[in-house]
């Protein structure tokens, strides 16, 4: 993808915004290392909702396999970065 890619900070902010919107947590809680389930109080339903919201936000599909690695805010940002950057693992 040759178009301008968002910066790491922009990606982090968008992932934070989605987490805040879905989980109704405070911005200061949504640190890069925050775990969705253990730190941000997400239950299994919230986790699925979060995945759907991330797909909607970034217009990218996330497979069930890929979803397993999205445990923290930071790992999600890294994943999105690879995904929209077109870098395949």
């Amino acid at each position, binding site marked *: 993808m040759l178009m301008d890619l968002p910066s790491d900070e922009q990606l982090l902010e968008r992932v934070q915004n989605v987490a805040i*919107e*879905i*989980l*109704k947590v405070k911005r200061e809680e949504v640190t890069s290392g925050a775990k969705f389930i253990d730190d941000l109080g997400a239950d299994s339903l919230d986790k*699925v*909702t979060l995945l*759907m*919201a991330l*797909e*909607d936000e970034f217009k990218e*599909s*996330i497979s069930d396999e890929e979803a397993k690695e999205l445990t923290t805010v930071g790992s999600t940002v890294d994943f999105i970065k690879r995904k929209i950057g077109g870098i395949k693992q």
Partner: protein
Amino acid sequence: MRKTVAITGIGVIAPNGCGRDEFWSNCLRGLAVAEEIPPHWNAYNTYNSRVWAPLQLPDWDQFSLNRAEKMQMDPVQLLSLACGEMALKDAGLKVTLRDEKKNTFSIEGIDAFRSGVFMGTGNGGLVSYTRAQATHVLAPVKKALDNMQNTCALPDSMPLEFSSRFNPFVVAMTMPNACSAVLSIKYGLAGPSITVSTACASGTSAIGQAYRAIASGEINTALAGGAEYLADPYGGIFRGFDTAGTLARGDGIASEASRPFDSKRTGFLFSAGGCAVLMMEDATQARARGAKVIAELVGYSENCDAFSIMGMSPEGDHVESMYNTLFDSSGFSAGQVDYINAHGTATLLNDEVESRIVERVFGSRPFINSTKSLIGHSIGAAGAIETAVTALSIESGKMHPSVNLTDPIRPLNFVVDKPCGYPITLALNQSFGFGGHSAGLLLKRPSPQ
């Protein structure tokens, strides 16, 4: 003692308008909505009917709906919530946030445990099921086609349209009772939460059940109505009705396809969907809080012709029996009815039977029209939308024209060409559904306060 039931709010979304003001003004000016079916549907089948009444879904962001709700609900549930919200606002009721994460509210000034929800739907979230099934089946098909490396392909006219994600909420999106449940959850209404499915009579049946629950004193307040959404991506639902031979052919001008009670009728105009929700209250409660009463509900009856799953009994005795129960139980008589909002589908059989029984029981005095002449047939929503029309007719003292009625099959007092003004005291809305269901609601001008 039976309590008087008041309609204090109306929320409606139909092919001819969103919100009661836009909807009602378009009804009164006789705006008929119909157009050719989506061209790509023709890639899958050759239909007898060529027309439908499309539904423009509203911008959901104008309602209290968040991103999660929009992703996890079928349009039929979103329509229910949007119309419920409009009905509450119309009734002058205020809500306060109950749970930010769930985006739920409480209604100020009502007893939540004595408040119920009664919704009718013919098919619930059927479209969400068709979408999930498309993902289930077509995702591997698409992958297989891609692996053939262009040695074969589908024509452009047959796009493989499906969501990449099999929606994990598909069960909740599909279940018919979600129409009521989402409203109960949204507003914390902890009384009965009932979904009625009596096909084309569902909306009328649901409002009837709510009427009975309030009139008997079981509850004080109800949100009640009907919702339907049938616009699946491939037109398979349309095909189901089409192959049953029930739909208007639409060979000429699309807006002239829906012709209830006309000698040239060919079937009903398939509607993509719609919804109406009424705020209903014990009239004493409504007046105590200073609410404006749009109309009163004063009677309801229902029965079944016990005849055929898809064909109305041609004798129509069950309809007459329904009237007898309706008038006996309400204390009113057929001679007092000023206006009938007919079921009026424009199928050959319905209109023949309905008009014959109406003439036999009511004569040619009451005004009569069919809202389906304007917006087609929205199945489970139809009876609720038509109850809203009946209430608005009483409130405004005007009845909308029944369009495309150039050669009536019976000399009834049809409202044609232009709206008709009359100070309606008593009105009847009636609906009949596949399975043999009949339902009739009596509405009355509010008593002086």
